[in-house]
Every structure is written in structure tokens, then in C-alpha cells.
């Protein structure tokens, strides 16, 4: 007796169709799984057997062979449990085989027969739709996430007997309440109104948010770099539906999507500086997305930038430039999206107090510190802001700005960009490639002079020149100016780090 059930495994972010074939025949009782399965899949034998018996079904005392096809694809994770159980039950006639042909099945089993949520439901639902199947049976907690796909019937189940009832046509599951399952953490926006002084830092933050530019905050400890950076999400524009789907997909695959339904917040990822290169950009024997991908369409915040291991920072270069990262492992390549905004913070020197009298570093310490930061990564930083200790009278004064007001300016500027960049593939100025940049950022001759000056003096690389133009375009957008004027270019140049002595030592 033979039965087939369709399920999916996740390869990078892509769902790959897997057919679970079960053959049950006379012989000594035996249960094997073949088909390039990892440890979690092989262990599913014990879970499946327990779940079937504890749900009131009989486990066939025969020779049971499970094959996961295609055999060449490496299969990982516990998501095959439910499909294997259904296929065995169909093979012995306990479930209607014809119903199983129209549905994909996905979920982890407990020994009692309960169905547990597992990661990647959105990608699996997309695979189901693409494979032309009628519907998907999956853990109840993941129903809202899977219904985002739209074209398929989503059937959430809590236990194996319930799946049997659904497949027999005896039960239509109710869609769960949106707040069912894990309670989403209450989102409390940090607000810029908490900040006193720092007007120029807030302005830079707004420019970065408005154009999707990379920002580096440099300053002594305790001055408010981290506090301000953490308020970045509060002024970012809301996610579009397409962006939200991308964010949900990545987070769901990484097992971080706890809320039901669509992601509503732009991600803000702040990995600790002991992170490895593969933790930052993705990796592992079975490639999983790294922090750079988890920050896709949001903010990647690297506090204490100089403390990050060099290989990790170097690994960020390609993702920063291309907006995606390709992880090659063995015979396959996983591609993860990485269109994030980089916000970083650093001390100006190892002791943190340069250039004040409290600084205890010598020239060599400073040069070493500058070297850790310098190079190709720094070249991709658009805005460098030195965060100073605010004056005493400003500490006690009124808030400098509010998130609501700054967010309104950002949304306004983004709308101007969207209108101009429609159809170019770029969503904001920071994403313009060289061709789009040439077409959309034209300068009056008097505006071009300072840029040529800086380039000629060798202060600016060609990439630095392009990046300056993008920032200048955003500054013009914030000022509601259609043309990029001299003042916009000059201000953008002021945010570049190249000028001598801006970060490192003299001589």
C-alpha cells in the first residue's frame, strides 16, 4: 500500500516542494525514513509513532518505509512530522488519500498528537499557492500568517485527530482570533521628545531616515548616541504591503515572527559586537538569515562599531552595496535580502573622551582606532555626526523635536522620492544606482563647483561623490526643493567623513 503527501522544506527563503511517500507492506515491524534527512527529520520517527498511537489510531505492525523526494535535496527541521503521519495513516486507509492529494501538510507533532507551530509558514503557503494546490493544513497558530498569501484555503489544526476530521470533510476549522496564540509584545515607540539638545544629530537622523542613508554617530560615552539611534524606528515611514511581506517572510523563516499576520513594524536589529560574520550576514550548514537580513527594510544598529570583529564588518560590504547576500554552502546557494539602513555608533578613541583633556590615549592608540574603522566600510557611511555633550541649559530645556513632527517630514520627503523614482526599482534616494542617480539628480553648475573641488583635492572617491549626491538629493527633498542647490551639496559634503582629522589622529 502506497500513499503520497505534499509538504515543503525551506531552502534559504525559498519553499521547495517535497513529496512524502510511504510504503507499508508485510514483514517484520520496521520503520525507516530515507531521503537525505537531517537529525531532526530522522527523529521524527519516534514523534510520529507516539502521536499516531496516542491519538487513537493504530500504528501498522508492518514494514513501513518513508521516502522524502526529491532525494537530492537536503531536508531539515521538524516540519515533516505531520506530513509523514498523514501519509502513513493514508497508506493504511485511516485517512482519505484523495483529499490529501489536494492539500499540502506542514507541522511538527508532539507525542500526544498535538500539532506544534514551526517556522517558515508564510514561505510554505507561498509554495502551496505556486504549486497549484487547493489548500494547506498547518498549525493553528500560523493560520493568520499563511492567509497573507490569499489564493489558498488555509486549514489550521491543533491535533492529529482534528486533521483527520478536516480531511474527512467533517469539520471546518474556525479561523482563530487575531490575538490568539502568543501574545505580541506591546510595541512602545521610543520618542524623540525624550531627547534634549542634540538638534544637529536629530537633523542627521531625519535625513538618514528620509533617504535610507547609512549613519555613523561618534562621541564620548554616555552622551546619548545609543539613545538617539534607538529612536530611529519612531521616525521611519510605515511599511508598504510588499515590504511587510518581505519582512514577515524572513522573520518567519528565522523563527522570530511571534505575532500573527503581517509584520507591522520596521525591524530594528541591534546585534551585540561579539557576533560572528555568519551571524551578521547569514550562514550555517543549512543557511539561515543573519542579522543583516533580519534588518531588511529596517535598521541594522551596530553599537560600538570599532569593537566588532573585522571579518564581520568586512562581510557587510556586499550586502550594503547589493541589497542582498548570497550564501554558498556545498551544492547550493541561498539568497537573502539585505536592504537595511546601517546606523552605527562609536567612541572617538579607545578611552572614549577624545578630544577633551580627559582623553588618555596617545597618537598610536588613535591611529589604531581609526584604522579599525577606516577602509571600505567607512566609505559606505553617508552621514558622520559627532555627538557632543549638550550644554547644561539645554539639558533642562524643552524637547528639541518630536517623533511625530520628524516622521511627518520623513513621510513627505519619501513621497517626493516615490513620485520621482517610480518605475526605477529604487524606493528611496539611498537605493538609487548610478544610472538612476545620473538621470534624477541634475545640478546647476554653481552647485557642482564644491563637489568638483572636493573630488579634485582627493577628499572624495568616485563612490563618495555618488553618495554625496544621494544625500544632497534627500536634503533637497526635505526642503521641498525640486532642484539640488549649492547649499544642499555643501551640507552633504559636511556630513562626509573624508576630511582630514575628522575621525583619526593628526600627522
Amino acid at each position: 500500500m502506497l500513499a503520497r503527501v505534499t509538504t515543503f522544506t525551506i531552502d534559504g527563503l525559498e519553499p521547495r516542494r517535497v513529496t512524502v511517500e510511504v510504503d507499508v507492506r508485510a514483514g517484520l515491524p520496521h520503520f525507516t525514513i530515507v531521503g537525505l534527512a537531517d537529525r531532526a527529520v530522522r527523529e521524527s520517527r519516534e514523534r510520529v509513532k507516539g502521536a499516531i498511537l496516542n491519538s487513537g489510531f493504530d500504528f501498522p505492525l508492518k514494514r513501513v518505509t518513508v521516502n522524502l523526494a526529491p532525494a537530492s535535496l537536503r531536508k531539515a527541521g521538524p516540519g515533516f512530522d505531520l506530513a509523514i503521519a498523514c501519509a502513513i495513516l493514508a497508506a493504511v486507509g485511516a485517512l482519505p488519500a484523495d483529499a490529501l492529494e489536494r492539500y499540502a501538510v506542514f507541522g511538527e507533532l508532539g507525542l500526544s498528537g498535538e500539532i506544534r507551530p514551526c517556522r517558515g509558514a508564510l514561505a510554505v503557503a507561498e509554495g502551496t499557492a505556486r504549486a497549484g494546490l487547493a489548500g494547506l493544513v498547518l498549525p493553528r497558530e500560523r493560520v493568520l500568517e499563511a492567509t497573507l498569501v490569499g489564493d489558498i484555503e488555509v486549514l489550521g489544526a491543533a491535533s492529529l485527530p482534528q486533521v483527520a476530521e478536516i480531511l474527512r470533510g467533517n469539520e471546518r476549522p474556525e479561523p482563530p482570533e487575531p490575538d490568539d496564540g502568543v501574545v505580541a509584545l506591546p510595541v512602545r515607540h521610543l520618542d524623540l521628545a525624550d531627547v534634549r539638545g542634540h538638534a544637529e544629530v536629530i537633523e542627521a537622523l531625519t535625513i538618514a531616515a528620509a533617504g535610507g542613508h547609512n549613519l555613523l554617530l561618534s562621541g564620548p560615552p554616555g552622551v546619548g548616541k545609543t539613545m538617539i539611534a534607538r529612536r530611529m524606528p519612531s521616525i521611519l515611514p510605515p511599511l508598504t504591503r510588499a515590504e511587510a511581506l518581505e519582512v514577515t517572510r524572513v522573520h518567519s523563516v528565522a523563527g522570530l515572527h511571534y505575532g500573527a499576520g503581517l509584520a507591522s513594524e520596521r525591524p530594528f536589529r541591534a546585534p551585540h559586537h561579539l557576533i560572528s560574520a555568519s551571524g551578521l550576514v547569514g550562514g550555517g550548514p543549512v543557511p539561515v538569515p543573519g542579522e543583516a537580513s533580519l534588518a531588511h527594510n529596517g535598521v541594522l544598529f551596530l553599537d560600538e562599531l570599532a569593537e566588532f570583529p573585522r571579518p564581520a564588518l568586512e562581510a557587510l560590504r556586499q550586502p550594503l552595496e547589493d541589497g542582498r547576500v548570497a550564501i554558498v554552502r556545498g551544492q547550493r546557494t541561498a539568497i537573502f535580502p539585505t536592504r537595511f539602513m546601517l546606523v552605527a555608533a562609536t567612541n572617538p578613541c579607545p578611552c572614549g573622551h577624545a578630544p577633551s583633556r580627559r582623553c588618555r590615549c596617545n597618537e598610536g592608540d588613535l591611529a589604531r582606532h581609526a584604522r579599525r574603522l577606516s577602509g571600505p566600510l567607512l566609505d559606505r557611511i553617508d552621514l558622520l555626526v559627532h555627538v557632543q555633550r549638550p550644554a547644561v541649559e539645554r539639558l533642562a530645556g524643552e524637547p528639541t523635536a518630536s517623533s511625530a513632527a520628524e516622521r511627518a517630514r520623513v513621510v513627505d520627503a519619501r513621497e517626493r522620492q516615490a513620485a520621482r523614482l517610480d518605475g526605477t526599482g529604487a524606493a528611496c534616494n539611498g537605493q538609487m544606482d548610478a544610472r538612476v542617480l545620473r538621470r534624477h539628480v541634475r545640478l546647476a553648475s554653481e552647485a557642482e563647483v564644491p563637489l568638483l573641488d572636493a573630488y579634485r583635492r582627493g577628499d572624495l572617491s568616485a563612490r563618495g561623490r555618488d553618495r554625496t549626491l544621494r544625500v544632497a538629493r534627500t536634503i533637497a527633498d526635505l526642503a521641498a526643493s525640486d532642484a539640488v542647490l549649492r547649499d544642499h551639496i555643501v551640507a552633504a559634503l559636511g556630513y562626509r567623513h573624508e576630511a582630514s582629522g575628522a575621525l583619526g589622529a593628526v600627522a
Partner: protein
Amino acid sequence: MTGIDACDACLSRTWLIAHLAGAIEVARHEKRRIREILALSEEQLLASLGGMRAAALAGELEALDVDGLRTSVDEAGLEALCRHADTYPARLHDLDDGPAVLFVAGGAERLVDLVGGDLDDGPRAVAVVGTRRASIDALEVARGLGRGLAAARVTVVSGMALGVDSAAHTGGLESSGRTVAVLAGGADVPYPPSKARLHRLIAEHGCVVSELPPGFVAMRWCFPARNRIIAALGHMTIVVEAAQRSGSLITAEVAADLGREIGAVPGPVTAWRSAGANALLRDGAVVIRDARDALDAVVGVDRHDAPELHIEPRLRDVLVAVADGRDTLAALTHTPADAGPTLAALTELELMGHLRRAPGGRYVVIPQ
């Protein structure tokens, strides 16, 4: 051979000192004064330091191939001038133990233009010295001094060491390039090695000099020895930052012995790093805050006023504010809306060459 203007006697003496370098190092450990040793005649040197090698060295000195020495100087790309040459800086004659020969990278002619002649009729020069482990402030002050002095066509003399010395040279190179580095080892050996680029730039625009032959690797006694040359070349010696037992104080002491002026940059009274400089001030050194103070002392009060600046009022206001100490974007900005225009004005001034960005986001006024 062009550019080698040194007599046989002086070259032989230099050869001898280089070969006795190890013995001089030992003598220093025995608390003998380097300057007394360097003032000895050749015979006395052999007698007091030659030890068992005295006779052999005397023989070698007798048979020395002086022309071979000249060739090696030429091959190292250096020039040499002895104390009998016209181009030899006459102000070094003020030293009892003045160097017999100066080896020069950058050309003897240029050296005459930078520090030639004696103090009264020669070009003005100021020695700027200080600690190797300098604070960022001290580095900025030294660099500003170098820039301002060189811009007023006063030669900046220093030792190319890490910290203050290098910062002073760097400042000099940023304006007219009038700067002279006095090295402890050979003039063709960049020391410290990390300053190789600075060495090349100084040799291109100014001069690098040494009293020891090409290729000579400095020993410890060479550093206090070269300090006497630094002190003698300048009209004034300015100590930027020095702790209580700093080598820069040796330079200041020599300068005082020679009757040269001494200046010091004041530091906080509690800072160990500035203790030496502050002690000099208490003993009557001239207070130096910037290049203007130094020029007042060396060139004369008010004989070096900057020409009026012709810049638009909006930028002038910002420039004045920076000069008054509101020298960061934060200090000039009250609301987010100010930030853009203020930053644009600062950057315009930077492009025009009136301001320079310093570490920590500060802006520094460049003297015009």
C-alpha cells in the same frame, strides 16, 4: 662631487664618532655627559673611549678612504657640509660641541634658505618640541604652531619624533613647507619608521639633517645629542607638552644655555603631561598659546597682521563664532532646522580654506 662640501678632517671626525658610538653609549651609562664627550678632540676621544681598540682605530683613521665616504654620501642621495663650509648654518657655531659635518636630505641650498647664516641676519626659525605621548589637544596646538609659523615664513625645526614633533612638521608642510627635521640617526633613515611618509615629504619641501653618516642607526645617546642641534638652529624653542622628565626639557635647557628664547604652552596644573612645560613657565618662559604669540616673540609684536578677509557676512559670523570657541556643529545649532544651513556654512568655509576639521567634530580656524 656636487653637494659634498666637507673637508677630510671633519669627515674623519664623523667617521670616528660613528665608530665609537657603542663606547659613547657605555659612557652615557656611566653618567658621563654626552655634550662633554662630543666637545673632545679626536685624540682625546680615542684616548678616553677607544679602550683596547684605540691603537687600531687610530691606524684606521690614518688610512681612512675619505673619498669613499663622500661617494657613500652621494649614493645615499644626501649632501654634506662641514663646519668650514660657507653653507654651514653659522648659528651652530654657538655650540662648543657643534657637529663637524651636517648630512642633508633636501639640498644644502635650501638649508641655507631655511636656517642658514647666524641668528641676526639669517632666516628666522623656531624649534617646536614636546612629548611623544601627546594629548590630542597638544597635537592640535603643535600643528597649529607649525602651520602659522611656516605661513609667516618662519622655519619650523623639530625632531620628527612621534607626537608633538611630527605634528609640528605636519603643520609646517600644510602651509609654506618651511620645516627642518633633525634626526638622531642617518638623515636617510626615517625614524621612527612609521613616519616614513612624513620623512619623504619633509625632504621634498624642507630639509632633513643629521650629524651622523648615512645609514647610521641611532643609539640612545644620539637623541639628547640631536636636541642640542634643534635648540641651536632656532631663535626660540617652544615646548608644547612635556612631563617632568622629558627629553624636550633638554632641548629647552640647551636653548637657555645658548641664550635663545624659551616658550612653553601652558597646560592644566594638575596634568602630569604638562608638568614640565608649566615648570618652564614658572621659571620665566614666554607663554605661547598659538602661532601669533610665537610670532610676537620671534618676529616682533604686530609686524605680522593677517590681511582683512573678504567673505560674505553670513559666513563671517560663523567664522567669528568658531574663533570664539563655539567650534562644533552642536554649539552652533539650536533647532534641527538650523543644522543644514550651519553645516553648509562651515563646509563652505572649509572649502575656502578658512577652517579645518579636527578630531571629535571640532572646527579649527586656519590662520591666513
